[in-house]
Every structure is written in structure tokens, then in C-alpha cells.
């Protein structure tokens, strides 16, 4: 589904953010990407739907080369859902209109169709009563659930999550993770940048550990938590699991 091979990316002439990253995500697989801040994990998943350009290597998404100048990027991006750390709902649109905008403008669905789909997804994330509110009237956890619903409204073939719970108050994290766990159980292909190791151990198939732009470890979940091979991964795990 997602093939990342030998991706190199530089900011400016000297600073290399991604170093020869190679991995893949199979259909229906849930891959968690973790690592210390500044390790390039967000950058890597933003390369997958070409939100971030990269200079070398290639990424193939459902058979389509992302970094081919001939690729119709808006069309490709519409097929991959993305959830951001800061939700990024559109503040001037009601919740239901946030869900409808891209369905209508990108997929060409009629307003009625889009609203029906939007309502179904709002029900799924438990926010039906808030359909006519504005994003700023919702809590962080609710906003992030809307953001997930907005991405799902496009019927994506895969979902990318960029630290979806990092900006949330602790008591709101689980409501968002619950939605993600359900999604994973339904067989959605997911690439998730997160520090939530509980989520990783519950639903991830594989865990990728990144440090300083490199993929240091790419292992089955049980191997990663059981016996990480690299010293850096061991250190990282001991730090975040010590509490």
C-alpha cells in the first residue's frame, strides 16, 4: 500500500532531516512511528502524501509514485486521510460543513450526499449533537474526533496520523484513541506518529523507531517491546515507559 524507499530530505543545503528511510505499510496494517522529537517522524509521514517534498528516493502509494511530477497530487491526497496534531478544523465552518467541504469540492458529491455521509460519521465518533456548532465551541478531544471523521468522509484507502493526541489534555486522549483503535480493528491501513505506547502495544502490527532522521528500528510489535535491538531504542523506551 505504502512503499517508502531510500528517501532523503534536506532543509536548506546542509541540514538533513531524513536519511535513507526505507519501509513499507501493507494493506490493513497499523504501523506506529515513534522516536524523540526532531527525529523526522512527522516529516516522514508528511512525505507520504507529498505535504513535504523530498529530494531523493521514492514513495509509492497504492501503485502511484508520489514524487512523480506527472502525478495528480490533489487527487492522490484526497484518497489518503490525514489527522494533525492541532486538529486544523476550519474555524469559520460548522462541524458538518467541515465534513462536507472536501466531499463536495474534491469528490464532487452532492450536498445531500455529503451531509448524509457526514452525519453518519459524526454519529460514529459520537458527536451528532454538535453538527451545527463551530470548532471553537468544542473541546480538543471532540475537535480531534471531528478531524478524524472529516478524513474518513473522503473514504480513504489509508490514514496518516501526525501525533493526534499530543496537543490534548490527558483526560481527552482516550476518547480519541478509542476511535483510532476501532478504526484499526476494522482493518484500516494506518501510519501513526505517536508516543502512546499503550496504543502501539494494543493495535500496532509494527513499530518504527526513528532517531536523527534515520529509521533505527523497524520491527514487529512484540519484538520491539520485547527486545529492541538498538541501544537508542532501548534508551527511548526506558525513558517513556519508566512512569
Amino acid at each position, binding site marked *: 500500500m505504502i512503499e517508502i524507499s531510500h528517501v532523503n530530505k534536506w532543509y536548506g543545503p546542509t541540514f538533513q532531516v531524513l536519511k535513507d528511510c526505507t519501509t513499507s505499510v501493507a494493506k490493513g496494517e497499523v504501523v506506529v512511528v515513534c522516536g524523540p522529537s526532531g527525529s523526522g517522524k512527522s516529516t516522514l509521514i*508528511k512525505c507520504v*502524501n507529498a*505535504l513535504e517534498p523530498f529530494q531523493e528516493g521514492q514513495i509509492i502509494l497504492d501503485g502511484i509514485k508520489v514524487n512523480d511530477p506527472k502525478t495528480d497530487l*490533489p*487527487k*492522490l*491526497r*484526497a*484518497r*489518503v*486521510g*490525514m489527522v*494533525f*496534531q*492541532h486538529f*486544523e*478544523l*476550519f*474555524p*469559520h465552518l460548522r462541524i458538518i460543513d467541515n465534513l462536507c*467541504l*472536501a466531499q463536495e*469540492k*474534491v*469528490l464532487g458529491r452532492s450536498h445531500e450526499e455529503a451531509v448524509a455521509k457526514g452525519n453518519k460519521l459524526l454519529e460514529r465518533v459520537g458527536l451528532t449533537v454538535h453538527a451545527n*456548532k*463551530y*470548532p*471553537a*465551541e468544542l473541546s480538543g478531544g471532540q475537535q480531534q474526533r471531528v478531524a478524524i471523521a*472529516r*478524513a474518513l468522509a*473522503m473514504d480513504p484507502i489509508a490514514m496518516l496520523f501526525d501525533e493526534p493526541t499530543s496537543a490534548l489534555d490527558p483526560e481527552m486522549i482516550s476518547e480519541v484513541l478509542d476511535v483510532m483503535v476501532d478504526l484499526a480493528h476494522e482493518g484500516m491501513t494506518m501510519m501513526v506518529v505517536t508516543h502512546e505506547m499503550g496504543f502501539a502495544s494494543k493495535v500496532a502490527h509494527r513499530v518504527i523507531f526513528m532517531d536523527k532522521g534515520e529509521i533505527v528500528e523497524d520491527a514487529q510489535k512484540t519484538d520491539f517491546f520485547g527486545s529492541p535491538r538498538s541501544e537508542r531504542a532501548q534508551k527511548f523506551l526506558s525513558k517513556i515507559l519508566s512512569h
Partner: protein
Amino acid sequence: MNYNWNWHIFFEPNPTGSGTYLDMLVSGLWLTIKTALLAWIIALIFGTVIGILRSLPSKTASWIGFAYVEFFRNMPLLVQLFLWFFVLPELLPRAAGLWLKQLPNAPFWTAAIGVGLFMSARVAVQLAAGIASLPRGQKQAATALGLTLTQGYRYVLLPMAFRIIMPPLTSEFLNTVKNTSVAITIGLIELTGQARAMQEFSFQVFEAFTAATVMYLAINIIVVTGMRFLERSLAIPGYITGK
């Protein structure tokens, strides 16, 4: 100072035969309003285009935006009107220059376009600042949903940017109204022009300019009230700048 106050002067016939002195001022008032409205429309259209150019990642686009803004904001408005009115016809091929000079209402069109372009540079700077003040993730979210760059601006970035810059835009609208008075120098007999004519005919300088002052004040009170109403009707529930 021997000054004969005469507030009844407004109801006395003016020597041009077009009714009373008040009629003279009112016709100037209408011309001021017409010039200001046309200039403001031009300022909004050109300001929006240039403001967007300035916010694009493309170097060429932002360079064009930069050059435009610096050209129009670094030259006194008076000089710009002289350029359009007196110099431009001379620079054009003879026939075109002649046609331009003989255009009916040339002072009106020159004033509206000249003031409009001058103000558009200021609108552009504010719009670019408004767009820049939005979180970077907004554009990314729009892009990730498959919206094209144009759709992203149309449905996501511009609606928010314009809401944010509403207060300074109000000031620019007021400035547009006031700046039309410079057009007296190219022979547009708008409100200031009529007040001056009245003073020359009747020698009642204080009455004439008191009336003009009150009329300018009245237009701008209407502008301020209208813009405040617009701002309130566009406010977003719960959003901080929307309160």
C-alpha cells in the same frame, strides 16, 4: 477679524445657476461617494490578487507582489494622480494619448483608478499579513484533503484572513474616502472642490468647509457603522477574534 457669519448662505442661489450652494455641495458629496466606492472596489480586487501573490511560496509570485506594493506605496498619492493624468497620455502613442485626454469624465476615472491602485497596495499588505497569521496547518489540512491551491485559498484561507483583517480594512476604507479629496488637483470637483468653489464665490470660507467637514464625517460614520455590522455578522461563535 471682520468675518460676517452667514449660515443662510447654503440656501442662497449659487452663481453657476445649478440651484443653491447646498445643491453644489451635495453634488460634490455624491461625486466623492461615487469616486470612493469605485476606488475601494478596485483596491479590494487588486489588493486581494496581490496579497495572495505575496503569500505564495513561488519566488516569482512574491517578487511581483513585492514590486507592485513598493511601487504604489512609496510614491505620494498626489504624484501618482499627476502621473496618470498628465504624464501617461504623453507617454502613449499620440492617438492613444489624445483619446485618453478627451475621455469624458477623465478626472473621475483617473481619480478612482489612481486612488484605487494606491490603496490596493495597502490592502495587499494587510491581506498577506492576515494569511500569514493563520496556522501553517490550515493550508496543510486543506491540501491533505485534496483541495487544490485555488480551492484552499477560496474556501479555507481567505475567509479566515479577511475576517482577521476586518478592523484595519475599515481604516483603509476610511482612508480611501478621504484620499479622494486629492483629486481636486486634477480637476475633479468633488466635495472638497465644491467647498472651495463655494468659498470663492461667496467668501463664506468657514461655512463652506464646516459643511464639507460634516459631510465627510457623515460618510465615514456610515462606513464605520457598516463595517462594524459586517464584522459582527461574520463573527465566528467561540473564536477568539470573533468576539
